[in-house]
């Protein structure tokens, strides 16, 4: 297992109850697999998770990106700036 950090914003932060969470995931997990892990732990994220974008260490990242120890993943629900 490896330890990573996940950042939550806006509606996702309200659902999870934290803005930053340390979690353990199997080694070589991808963002897509992390999404499944988060959904299992926070089922109410489903609506946002299916439409969320992700960033790793402050850069946008696709679901197939593999995560490493201490990576900081941002869970980005659909945006509404402007």
């Amino acid at each position, binding site marked *: 297992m490896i330890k990573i950090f996940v950042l939550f914003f806006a509606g996702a932060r309200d659902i999870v109850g934290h803005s930053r969470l340390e979690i353990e995931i199997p080694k070589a997990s991808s963002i897509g697999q992390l999404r499944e892990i988060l959904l299992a732990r926070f089922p109410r994220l489903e609506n946002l998770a299916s439409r969320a974008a992700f*960033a790793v260490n402050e850069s946008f990242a696709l679901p197939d990106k593999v995560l490493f120890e201490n990576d900081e993943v941002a869970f980005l629900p659909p945006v509404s700036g402007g």
Partner: protein
Amino acid sequence: MRIKLTRDPIDHQEMVENCRTKSTGAIVLFLGTVREITGNNQTLSLEYDAFAPLAEKSLTEIAEEAKSSWPIREIEIIHRLGTIQPGETSIAICLSCPHRADAFSACQQIMDKIKKVVPIWKKETSPHGVSNWIHP
């Protein structure tokens, strides 16, 4: 080029003066302002939150991309964070180009892109104290 997230009111007049150059014949300023009434709903205030480092990076990329597509000489984008009231400015885009057609279309495309990708979110507070994050 100036890209900024701020909790203070946006001074758009300063942005216009920063974009004024002798080699450009058009300055376009777009202000996004908080609308009090949408259909039958009233908005008391909006609260903006961002993943600031990525939002700034993303705004910078959008501005750079626009500069490679249009003859933009100066460009500034400022987005407000925190709680703001109806009528106040939430975002300002100001840019200058030699001619107006380029300035108008650059500004429109920049704004459309910002609304799609930049990690900024707003929470709407309606009467009766109901607050909701907007996730379109």
